[in-house]
């Protein structure tokens, strides 16, 4: 018995050795994200983790490291081993943070191996039902009395806020931007009449629009959104080339071997192809959007450039 074990030992050691790509993964993986449990990022992480663990044959654990707009988590992940076992669920805020913070404890683009985007979603420009006939009417009213129309947003430096500032820059209209703590609070203020417009995601806006409380004046994506083809875009109404889409995606620390990142990308894309995942992502108002690593890198780099410009022009305090 003991002899048998002894002969088996070198074999066992060989199996435990790190790590050719075909052995990956031989233990549990984790998805870190930078937001509170139960938020959008957490929900998406759990949805994707469940399917990925099926195809990779190892548990995928979701870990929340909240703080400072997700930058705590990004700083943490960028310093982890690039062995493929640590993933980060990133959101559009990753690009915003790169533009907004004076110093970050990581390189926003070069510090990561980007795997794939998961979902992309537009923002919606909403007003109380009947207030403005169209997006053009809103901009006209804003130009007629500059600074009188109030846009509520979900927090200074949020993508929602920057989208409102970008709208002002591109149309030449002047708005009063009012910060709230989160989209729900901004939406309550719109209902109560404290602000005139809210720009936020479909999960915040659409239930109210379906109930006839809000009109959706326009959608911020460059093209009409497949899920809601009747909604005009900002680009076709008041600001040509206007294109703001936020996203969720998977990143890893920089330096993950290509074979391993390819394998993870395969698992992500396979998960996105299942109805369990794609339906849930769609119910969060997003379009499932598998991508290559390069596409995701370009998306982020492009957004960093846009937001850096908006923050400088609108005079938002960097932090």
């Amino acid at each position, binding site marked *: 018995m003991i002899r048998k074990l002894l002969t088996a030992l070198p074999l066992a050691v060989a199996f435990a050795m790190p790590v050719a790509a075909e052995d990956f993964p031989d233990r549990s993986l984790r998805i870190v994200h930078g937001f*509170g*449990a139960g*938020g959008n990022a957490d929900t998406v992480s759990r949805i994707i983790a469940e399917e990925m663990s099926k195809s990779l044959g190892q548990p995928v654990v979701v870990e929340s490291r909240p703080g400072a707009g997700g930058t705590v988590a990004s700083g943490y992940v960028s310093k982890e081993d690039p062995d493929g076992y640590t993933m980060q669920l990133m959101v559009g805020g990753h690009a915003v943070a790169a533009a907004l913070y004076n110093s970050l404890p990581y390189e926003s683009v070069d510090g990561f191996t980007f795997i794939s985007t998961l979902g992309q979603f537009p923002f919606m420009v909403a007003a109380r039902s009947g207030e403005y006939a169209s997006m053009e009417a809103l901009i006209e009213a804003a130009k007629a009395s500059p600074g009188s129309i109030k846009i509520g947003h979900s927090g200074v430096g949020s993508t929602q806020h920057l989208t409102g500032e970008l709208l002002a820059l591109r149309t030449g209209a002047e708005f009063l931007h009012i910060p709230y*703590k989160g989209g729900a609070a901004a939406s309550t203020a719109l*209902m*109560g009449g404290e602000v005139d417009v809210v720009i936020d995601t479909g999960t915040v806006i659409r*239930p109210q629009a379906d109930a006839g409380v809000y009109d959706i004046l326009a959608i911020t994506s460059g093209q009409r959104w497949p899920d809601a083809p009747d909604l005009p875009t900002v680009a076709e109404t008041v600001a040509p080339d206007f294109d703001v889409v936020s996203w969720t995606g998977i990143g890893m620390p920089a330096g993950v071997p290509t074979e391993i990142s390819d394998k993870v990308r395969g698992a992500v894309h396979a998960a996105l192809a299942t109805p369990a995942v794609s339906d849930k992502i769609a119910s*969060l108002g997003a379009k499932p959007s598998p991508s290559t690593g390069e596409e995701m890198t370009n998306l982020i780099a492009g957004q960093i450039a846009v937001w850096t410009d908006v923050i400088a022009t609108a005079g938002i305090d960097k932090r």
Partner: protein
Amino acid sequence: MLDQFLLGLSVVLQPTVLIYAFFGVFLGQLIGVLPGVGAITAISLLLPVTFYLDATTSMILLAGIYYGSQYGGSIASILMNLPGTPSSVVTCLEGYPLAQSNRAGLALFVAAFSSFVGGMVGVAILVLAAIPMTIIALKFGAPEYAMLVILGLLAASMIGTGSQIRSFAMVVLGIALGLVGADATTGYYRFVALPELADGISLVSLAMGLFGVSEIIRNASKRRPANAPHLSISMRDVIPTREQARSLGMPILRGSSIGSFFGALPGTGAAIASFMAYAMERRFSRSPEKFGKGHLPGLAAPESANNAASQTGFIPTLTLGVPGDAVMALIVGALILNGIIPGPRLMVDQPDLFWGVIASFFVGNIILLLINIPLIKLWVLLLRIPYQKLYPIIVVMICVGVYSHRTSVTDVVLTLAFGILGYLMKNYRFEPAPVLLGFVLGPLLEDNFRRTMLLYGGDFSVFVTRPISAVLVAGSVFLIGFAIFSSVSNRNKSNRATT
């Protein structure tokens, strides 16, 4: 209304749903007892479970954890001076002295019963007046919130048992601590000495430190640690006398009304409600000198208030689909996982869900009362554990609880630091409750005041030209006037007595 409520009851009384309702409130109760582990942590741990349940059942389960933890929170506050939630801070003020004078069982009974009545009043308001309450809540804009907070802070400065100046200083300390973190109006970082403080000081670590840890240090530093008194736990000592019961009727009623109202305002909720209820009892009591030493009405009013608030807190979530606070956001998250995005049409499109959840509150409160009364004896027995064994366990539990909140070691270290601060404060007769109130309300005041200034171009007159705001201003003026009047008349009285 009644038909629909009966429809809801028929949903809840299905055996499987009932089991989850029971499981939810029971778990919430247990979680609430654990120091530092709040409803948020518990609900987020259980969120994945909702993958396997339908929307109604998951919502009943998660909501049960939430209001169950309000019951549980008062147990730890009474027995060990450990407020699990900001709203149970006030419970410590009268509950803990009662426990120390060997009346823990009575305190637990009164807390459970007041919680039950408060919860039931909250449910009744939810059934009968959800829509009108929603309309009122929507009338509360930034100016109203700002004035409401001022009224709350004024009421709070009357909470302290010692001198008003001392308690005022502590409110200011709390406000100062609340300044740490990103400024909501500009996003600018204030006093962020450590990167972990970018989102501010954690309320849990402040409350656990100032109340729980400081009390442990204080007891440990006594030459001969006060060992557990000989405890009598016969049922006779647990149930209030007829005279005591009579004195509790009005406080519970007042507490429930205050709680029902504040709960329905998104973002204020149970904490303000319980502080206001306590301050009100104390201000208008015939024997204010009894407060702070284990006065039953001072326990009953805030307990009923925070439970009423935790029920009416569901009003904006259910009628508008707008979650009022972090816990509600989590519960809404569970609905979204189930493919239901809550909005104003929830009541019409999903009547089973809407009324089922409300009916589950009704059933859940009854279950909570039924499991709480027999458990009182068990909880009191906890106090028989010798302190040298109990305290290390509690300290470990506090550390785990605080860490689990934001997975931050800094928070744990800060908790211990606040414990030392709390110990020093107690030695110099400064009280911790006003610190917490300032900490919770300060940022709310700043936020809404500055938002008002932004919205109305710096015009102060909005505070008196908007009707609700004007009423609140009048309330504050009245409180100040009352305080001046009563201190002057007291001085006259004492002058007359000495001459």
